[in-house]
């Protein structure tokens, strides 16, 4: 279990998070929704050790989580940053190796090689570009690479920041499909998304963050059913297609 409890965070004087508590199990996908500036990325950065909470604590399996991103990656908490952020001049293979940096340093060569094969099976397009520069990949391919790179660390908890941002619906659907199947491999996922419908369709639980506080937590179906929540907290982005695709997506996710 990875959790934050009673976390506050200030950027200087500006309050970014206020008394936020949230938990994530290894067997589930949890969505963290909210509009721009609601504090979602701040919360992810706290969970991955990039930021230190001003108040409150981060717990891993009931104990205070190790400090700093390096120690947290070692403990199995891995963040895939927003905007892909692949290592552009490195090859696709080298990017994947960097994902497994800590494991390779520990000498787990054989296990890493197996995982690399697994990633190429999960994202076949990466296999065809394995020797090419990551910077030459398309946006969708880079997003797949960023996710595969994160998974190469063999995470127990994967923190995904806007994995569908800027992707075509087809590629986004593929990404969400991979996310949906991760808990079965023992990897819990905390999914920060603007694409609320896509995220909720693969999630077991959802949290809505508004101006630094959790306003709702619970069943994704309740969020989708509640017109007020939808309108107030998910923004207009998901309004137009809510009537048709949204509902079917959500139902597909629950099925």
């Amino acid at each position, binding site marked *: 279990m990875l959790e934050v409890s009673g976390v506050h965070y200030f950027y200087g004087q500006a309050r970014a998070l206020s008394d936020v508590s949230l938990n994530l199990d290894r067997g589930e996908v949890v969505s963290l929704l909210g509009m721009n500036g609601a504090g979602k990325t701040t919360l992810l950065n706290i969970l991955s050790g*990039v930021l230190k909470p001003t108040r409150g604590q981060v717990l891993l399996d009931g104990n205070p989580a190790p400090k700093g991103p390096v120690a947290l990656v070692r403990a199995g908490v*891995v963040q895939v940053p927003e905007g892909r952020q692949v290592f552009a001049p490195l090859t696709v293979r080298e990017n994947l*190796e*960097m994902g497994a940096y800590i494991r390779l340093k520990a000498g787990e060569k054989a296990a890493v090689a197996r995982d690399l094969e697994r990633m190429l099976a999960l994202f076949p397009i990466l296999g065809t570009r394995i020797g090419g520069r990551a*910077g030459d990949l398309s946006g969708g391919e880079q997003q797949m690479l960023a996710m595969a790179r994160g998974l190469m*660390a063999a995470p127990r908890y994967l923190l995904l920041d806007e994995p569908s941002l800027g992707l075509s619906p087809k590629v986004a659907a593929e990404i969400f499909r991979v996310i949906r199947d991760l808990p079965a491999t023992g990897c819990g996922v905390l999914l920060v998304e603007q694409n609320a419908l896509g995220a909720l369709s693969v999630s077991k639980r959802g949290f809505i963050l508004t101006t630094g506080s959790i306003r709702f937590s619970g069943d994704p179906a309740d969020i989708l059913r509640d017109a007020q929540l939808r309108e107030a907290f998910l923004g207009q982005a998901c309004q137009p297609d809510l009537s048709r695709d949204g509902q079917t997506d959500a139902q597909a996710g629950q099925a």
Partner: protein
Amino acid sequence: MAAHAALSQYLISGLTTGSVYALTALGYCLIYNATKVVNFAQGDFLSLGGLLFYSLLSGLGLPLVPAFVLAVAGVALAGALMERLCLRPARSRDLMVLIFITVAASILARGLMKTVWGKQTLPLPSISPEIPLRFMGAAFTPQNLWVLGITLAAILGLKHFFDRTLTGKAMRAMAANPRAASLMGIDTAGLTTLSFALAGALGALAGILITPITSLSYDVGVLLGLKGFAAAVLGGYGSFAGAVAGGLILGLLESLCAGLLSSAYKDVLAFLVLLLVLFLRPSGILGVKEGRS
């Protein structure tokens, strides 16, 4: 025939100084890629390398190879200490602040070296006896071969390090995206220190190799360091291949200019090249153009 011989003479001396510029430029690149800082103390690594080598050989009477290894290791340590003691405690992300710290470190280092070794020129012996050699009419010494050989070995060693080793790849990843690198569990602070140590080692190599040819004193690295900087800019600041190309081109240009025009203009040339590159093609020969990531 005479013209032919003169030309090969210029080529050999140009490639020799060019190699030293290349090593110096590589040092700038290493630190720039890790931190985006221009390290104005890179030239002082050269001086320190030469001075340490001199003291280990003449002062302590060590044999050549241990003196060489210890001098390189000593400057590598100095580089690491500079990062740990001068740059990191500043806890600043402002590049101007960090760059000025390197300027201060350079002045401080020069003062210390002047106190320890004095102001006079010191006689640093060549790596092997000075037997005159001839090739295609040009006269040169084994030291020229040592410079070329050790520079080539250093470049190949660096290439192997960055392309084949986990730590080297992690340093490239950090150069490309430090934030993402730390999210992968890459120890960016440790690798930054390592970059300074490597830059120190390269500077030491350059200093040990060139000072028997030029001269050795506490401030010999100032001009060489600036020329290495010009070479790095010419090649495309931050590009390793560019640093090597820029260094060799600059060395050859200087040597041809000294031979065909006048040696009085030799030192001006590097800065003329620097200005022209900055006016005409700021990204250098092999550098990445602005706006492309």
